[in-house]
């Protein structure tokens, strides 16, 4: 078969279209995950409850994004969630820093906030953050509030 320039142009068009479908499936849909840059280091943290935390959510300290969440897994020995944080190498945190799951705004997405401690050794690749605070579960909060109210009422 002889080649014509039309074939090349149509080939480009079809390739573009297929690339767009692939992009929609992989990047917009959830078929593939992102790669992380090699300038990060991994730190782990265990939480009793992660609420609505998602992979790729930001890790912030003092409101500044310092990293991303790379992985969330369930640990069936401790019955806790094991979250992998990828933190930018430029930022170093003391070993006794604490991590908390916080929410931005009332309906906003959840992120992990890190507060620095006082240790003179820094967190390194593969370390686990010991001090963690789980996500706030609204139902628990309300039931606690009602329980306190009830006990207040009976003590009067």
């Amino acid at each position, binding site marked *: 078969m002889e080649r014509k320039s039309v074939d090349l142009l149509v080939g480009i068009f079809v390739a573009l279209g297929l690339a767009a*479908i692939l992009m929609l499936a992989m990047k917009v*849909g959830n078929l593939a995950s992102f790669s992380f840059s090699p300038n990060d280091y991994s730190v782990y943290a265990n939480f009793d409850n992660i609420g609505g935390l998602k992979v790729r959510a930001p890790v912030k300290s003092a409101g500044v994004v310092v990293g991303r969440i790379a992985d969330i897994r369930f640990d069936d020995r401790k019955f806790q969630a094991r979250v992998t944080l990828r933190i930018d190498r430029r930022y170093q945190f003391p070993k006794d820093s604490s991590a908390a799951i916080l929410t931005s705004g009332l309906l906003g997405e959840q992120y992990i906030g890190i507060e620095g401690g006082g240790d003179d050794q820094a967190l390194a690749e593969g370390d686990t953050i010991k001090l963690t605070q789980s996500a706030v579960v609204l139902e628990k909060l309300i039931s606690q509030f009602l329980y306190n109210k009830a006990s207040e009422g009976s003590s009067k």
Partner: protein
Amino acid sequence: MIDAPVRWLTALGAWAIDSVWRLGLASRFLGATLAGSGTALRRFRLTVKQVHFVGNYSLIIIVVSGTFVGFVLGLQGYNTLQKYASEQALGLLVALSLVRELGPVVTALLFAGRAGTALTAEVGIMKATEQLSAMEMMAVNPMSRVIAPRFWAGVISMPLLAAIFSAVGVFGGYFVGVVLIGVDEGAFWAQMQAGVDVFDDVLNGVLKSVVFGVVVTWIALYEGYDAVPTAEGVSRATTRTVVTSSLAVLALDFVLTAFMLGSGGW
């Protein structure tokens, strides 16, 4: 005195009968196109040439519209979401509206305007200048030589164009939302990936665009083939192509969406 209502009734009846007639003709036309598709698929070069005509030439308008629709979605979405402090959901909003609705529908409307009219005019003028009759005289079936390759080119091009539209639109939304306004990049993509399902959303969108491709191309070719073989007839046929296929796309969109959502709820 009684004349006016009678004339009005007569016109209504003539219009109704004519519509049913054309619907039947269009169905037979689709059947003949499918029956004549053997040549279009065997001599695939014919179809490739039409994909170039229908697809490549529509590329620019699709890419530009997709970009701007993405820009606008990013701006409007941010403005509304920001009131509820959930502007991180911008990516999800942009991607879902594009993949589910705007991608297939707007592409189909643009496709009807850009490629459908060209097909109608081309086929109509072929008919008006008696090229189609000449082919029949030479024992070449115009259905398989002229109509079927154009039909398959439309069916192939439309989903590809819709996918390009959606993909470009997502990047348009990304540009306005993340680069210009400053929504968190990770949240933009993460919320999108968490909320968009490959099968429920992306695949259904592609399915929609295939259906729209069939309908728009079918209407465009039929109107051309059925055109009154004069300059005026061809121009009327071209107008009818845009009107009919746009209405058909919008109506079908509702039906398809009801079906697709129906499988999950209702």
